């Protein structure tokens, strides 16, 4: 695909952003449109299959993954604000479909077009400054599941982008890359271990004194944000997209349901 000419991208919402954090998807949309991308939102998409894949229920994961493959137009980029959803497409689909050559080929082509939001901005659009009006001190939690591997272009898109926001002071936490303890089903099955890990993460976050903690993954956001909310810690968890776009207000009051 040639990024010259008008770029179009379909938003791959992440089922958890869809249900729990629509703001995140709108922030992503706003950000993409800011850089001239024509954004579509294929409404028949549901989930990537990761919850079933991670629990080892591959038959069900395949059914859901197939549905995702069918829900998007045949061309244009596919951009998601959730690192682990992109990782599922890049690393999970090849495993799921390893015995189905035709679907595997389709899944690989799909993965070729799929990007985590910050990587898309930096690697495809060549954005160096997200032009964000956001102000505040921000610490960044590196989600473990930002896709590494074949799409590794710029080493660290989230930090590259955060650093170039004039109003943002990025304060690094210790162990920024250490898992926050979410792990999807892990946090349900082993809530105590999971919380012990989250507590350690929160300690590191609080030690920075930052006003915001940003992360590029919906799972980490639910987890870290959930503990902050419970104990009223003096820091706010935001999705990276919200910082990059400039944190849109919550718009719950619009029109009848």
């Amino acid at each position: 695909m040639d990024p010259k000419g008008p770029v179009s991208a379909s938003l791959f919402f992440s089922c958890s952003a869809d249900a729990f954090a629509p703001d995140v998807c709108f922030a992503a949309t706003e950000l993409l449109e800011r850089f001239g991308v024509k954004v579509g939102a294929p409404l028949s998409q549901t989930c990537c299959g990761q919850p079933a894949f991670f629990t080892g229920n591959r038959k069900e994961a395949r059914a859901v993954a197939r549905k995702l493959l069918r829900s998007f137009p045949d061309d244009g980029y596919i951009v998601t604000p959730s690192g682990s959803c992109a990782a599922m497409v890049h690393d999970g689909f090849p495993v799921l479909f390893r015995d189905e050559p035709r679907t595997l080929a389709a899944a690989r082509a799909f993965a070729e077009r799929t990007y985590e939001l910050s990587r898309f901005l930096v690697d495809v659009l060549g954005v160096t400054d997200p032009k964000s009006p956001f102000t505040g001190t921000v610490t960044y939690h590196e989600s473990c599941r930002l896709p590494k591997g074949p799409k590794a272009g710029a080493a660290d898109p989230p930090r590259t982008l955060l650093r170039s926001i004039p109003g943002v002071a990025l304060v690094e936490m210790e162990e920024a890359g250490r898992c926050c303890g979410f792990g999807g089903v892990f946090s349900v099955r082993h809530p105590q271990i999971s919380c012990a890990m989250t507590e350690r993460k929160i300690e590191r976050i609080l030690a920075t004194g930052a006003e915001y903690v940003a992360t590029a993954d919906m799972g980490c956001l639910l987890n870290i944000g959930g503990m902050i909310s419970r104990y009223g810690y003096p820091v706010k968890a935001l999705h990276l997209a919200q910082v990059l776009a400039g944190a849109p207000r919550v718009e719950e009051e619009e029109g009848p349901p």
Partner: protein
Amino acid sequence: MEPDSRAFERNALKALSDKELQDALENAVGRIEARRAAAVASFDGFEAARERASGLRRETLSRLGDHLARFIEEAEKRGAVVHVARDAAQARGIVARVAREEGVALAVRSKSTAAEEISLDDALREAGVEEVETDLGGYVARLAGEPPSHILSSAFHMTREAVSRVFEGKLGEPPAADAATLSAIARKRLEESFSRAGMGVSGANFLVAETGSVVLLSNDGNARAGALLPRVHLVVAGIEKVVPRMADLPVFLRLLSRSASGQPLPSYVSILTGPRRDGDAEGPQRLHVLLIDCGRSAILEGKYRDALKCIRCGACLSACPVYGCVGGRPYGWVYPGPIGAVLTPLLAGLSEAAALPDASTLCGACSDACPVKVPLSAFLLELRSDTRFQGLKAPAEIAWAKGYASVMKRAGVLEALERILGELSRLVSKGHPLSGMPYPFAGWTERRDFPSVARRPFRKLWKIRRGARE
């Protein structure tokens, strides 16, 4: 050693509420992980070395039979006695026979996971042989009556205070607070055993096929003393330990040492090539090498072959955030941490250890740390899928998976479900995050809130704001 991995969750909870253990873990794991990370970062050729070592291991495993035959031939040529055991029981039989035939009364042993795997202590006990563990950590853990917590250091989980208490209680030593005094106490006790022992028992870090040599690495010198001083030496090693050539060793030594302790090279490297020859200043007069299969051939033939690449450096343990929280005990067998969560199901049976692959967030820190690129995360995922095929999953989980898939197969159904859950959560919490959820999510919200479903999920809002345009 009998696996006790089914009790992972119970033992993990115990570990989490054990304040002293938590301090020890934070200290020990934190320190070793920092040293490892620094040693790897300062090793320019790390990635290249990793690639090379991984390739070498792979190549070796693809012709393991040939390399092993060569090792046996060369070792025997140089006077070693080589035994091969199919399983743990057979291995124990061989150990007991060797001990009896060699007339051994006291054996000194250095840390060996292979020996733990076959419960070598039982074999010696049956043969009436007294056994002393000479690895400092292992010595302490043994005195305290605790199972090993790490593949490198058995008392990883104990604070100095705990060690001092054990020495006071079991040996009648006065309390001591510093590490030097504590290890001096242990050394004094151990020295005496070294001079009396008729047999030394050790594992092997590598077996070199072209020369029939056994390579032993250690940082405290006990393994070396145990191999050189007693009249007889018995090596217990998994069949996968073989490397084809002496020239292959350096890359492994570098990687293993940095990944294990952060040192550029191990303090002691002992290479035993046959027993003592005329004119040799030291070395055992008799050298036995016991090669154990214990399930390895089966692994070699299947999709988990790369697990046998492992060189037991322990990097995946120190890097693992779950191991860092609960320590080694909950894994319930010889190998804890991520490699344990892979090897225990493969060697001791998935039905025994199905809980272990689940005890991971799949964050990938283990795979990233592994110096020979064992795909640990991918294997954990694969094992989770195997439990479904082997009928080891709870019916409730399968029902959940089916329900999940049938919702996700149609956007309309998902939308309806979102609406219902949204209404429900607003009834309960008035749009605030949920501070409690029903089973099986109750644990989740014990110390965390869960967001309630938005009144209008994104797909709904998108339709409102942008019309039906997609």
